């Protein structure tokens, strides 16, 4: 989790140096376990939140191939619930709206990593999860009538679940790979959200603008004189 926060901040603000993250990618890879997912520290149980953070950090560090991508893909696709359509955070647990982003958000990252190594079997229109089923879960089960979104029916709304249900909805609605784009929108067209950047979870234009802005400044050095 901390590694992802650091990588996210450093990469957007152009302070990312090899020294800053020396050994980080290898450490994250050690957090992948026998289940295929990633835990909080080496040895821990695979968990949706930590898996997203680990994979996204590795994408930023351009080291996603340190992972066993096949077992990761097997694990995350197994986390979509066949009845509810939403995702669980870990094996044998209940569905939760926030994993709409943490888990489903892994598929765009995996798609990109597999595409980079020339995988011929990748779809040109869809992520490797049931996008419509996830949208159904979010729209039908995770909305609070008074506004805001939530974990599952019966729970109360909060900002965290509102954020990640919406982020997950955006992921489920928008496929994009290079020049390819495909929208899959459940219900009326007005349900369509703006796309979100699968690594940073802010609008792609904002990522571009941040990167452009900070590229104007040199990478800070540790030299006290400067």
């Amino acid at each position, binding site marked *: 989790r901390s590694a992802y926060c650091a990588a996210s901040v450093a990469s957007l603000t152009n302070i990312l140096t090899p020294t800053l993250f020396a050994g980080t990618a290898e450490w994250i890879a050690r957090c992948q376990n*026998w289940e295929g997912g990633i835990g909080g520290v080496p*040895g*821990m*149980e695979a968990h949706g939140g930590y898996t997203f953070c680990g994979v996204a950090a590795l994408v930023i560090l351009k080291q996603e191939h*340190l992972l*066993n991508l096949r077992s990761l893909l097997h694990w995350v696709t197994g986390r979509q619930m066949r009845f509810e359509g939403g995702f669980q955070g870990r094996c*044998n647990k209940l569905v939760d709206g926030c994993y709409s982003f943490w888990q489903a958000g892994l598929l765009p990252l995996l798609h990109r990593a597999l595409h980079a190594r020339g995988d011929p079997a990748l779809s040109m229109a869809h992520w490797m999860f049931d996008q419509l089923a996830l949208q159904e879960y979010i729209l039908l089960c995770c909305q609070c009538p008074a506004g805001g979104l939530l974990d599952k029916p019966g729970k109360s709304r909060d900002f965290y679940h509102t954020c990640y249900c919406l982020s997950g909805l955006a992921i489920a609605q928008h496929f994009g790979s290079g020049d390819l784009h495909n929208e899959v929108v459940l219900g009326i067209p007005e349900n369509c959200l703006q796309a979100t950047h699968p690594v940073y979870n802010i609008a792609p234009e904002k990522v571009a603008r941040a990167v452009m802005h900070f590229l104007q400044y040199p990478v800070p050095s540790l030299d006290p004189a400067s």
Partner: protein
Amino acid sequence: DEIGLIPCPEARYNRSPIVLVENKLGVESWCVKFLLPYVHNKLLLYRQRKQWLNKDELIDITCTLLLLNPDFTTAWNVRKELILSGTLNPLKDLHLGKLALTKFPKSPETWIHRRWVLQQLIQENSLPSLATKGNLGAAPMERIHRLVQEEMNVCSEAAGRYPSNYNAWSHRIWVLQHLAKLTVKVLLDELSSTKYWVSMHVSDHSGFHYRQFLLNSLIRGTVTDNNILVQNQMVNEQNPSLQKGEESAGTEAACAEEQSVDLPRRLDEEMELCAELIDNYPGHETLWCHSDETLNNSHQSPATSHMTQAMDVDGLNESSSKQGYTQETKRLKRAPVQDSLGPEMEYQFVDKVLSTCRDVDQARFATAYRKWLVTFLGQ
């Protein structure tokens, strides 16, 4: 030994909201909205240097705060300062944390603080000079052993209070890695002492993951591939516990009891446990998951490891940095295994489940397991 909130929306009588019965501490709920802001504010004023509090007051205030909200990091940090200055006995914080966990079994900050306290305690324990390695008196070892046992209890209680308690089981693993040094005896003891617990909590993925951790540690400590076997023999012939940097200081390793591990038998026992639970409790994905992985491990056991070098690794090219922890994620395409009855029995087991089960999920898991058997074992 336990705290709790007594639902009591109005103060009916002019009396204390604190109730103590048979060593259980209860607080009537009406008082929380007065008490919590009061102590919280007092602590904040102290931190902002606007109002002084002496050591006893600090201890009382932080204690009250943490029993009401143990995720208040600042309160734990004040106690860290008190411990470092010698005013507060670290063991008190272990007790306070244990109490907080009876009501808040997941509380991340409580577990985090607990690890800090334990690290302080081991540092106190360790002797300054390396020359004394191997000559430790019984007392420090005994103390550590008792600490470890107590942590196992605390984790077990917390795990029972909240299903799949990630933080409790993570802490348990951490204690084994950093306090108990993953000796064979400890691993085997933990396998036997958690067996009953997981049988009573068949959907608790964290509990079963813990058993995978124990079995994997046993496997890695003896043989996974030739590199590690050779390393163990060269570095420390006596002790099969892990020598990896962040897991073992190695100081007490020489004192660890020796016990040889019949790995294939342990894995067979685990398969039997899975089969029994799967039969008795249809439809729990965790059990199938656990069974799948245990079978996978039993086919990478020492008896068959000589076959691994000749085989292709299925799927992706992985960088050589993926040794050790993630050895078990590799799937090997291999010729039929000749030296084990395992696969035959697994097929019989799965076919029996398929023909007798009426639970839809159970049927689905069994079908998937069968497909996996065919693919993986190539039979």
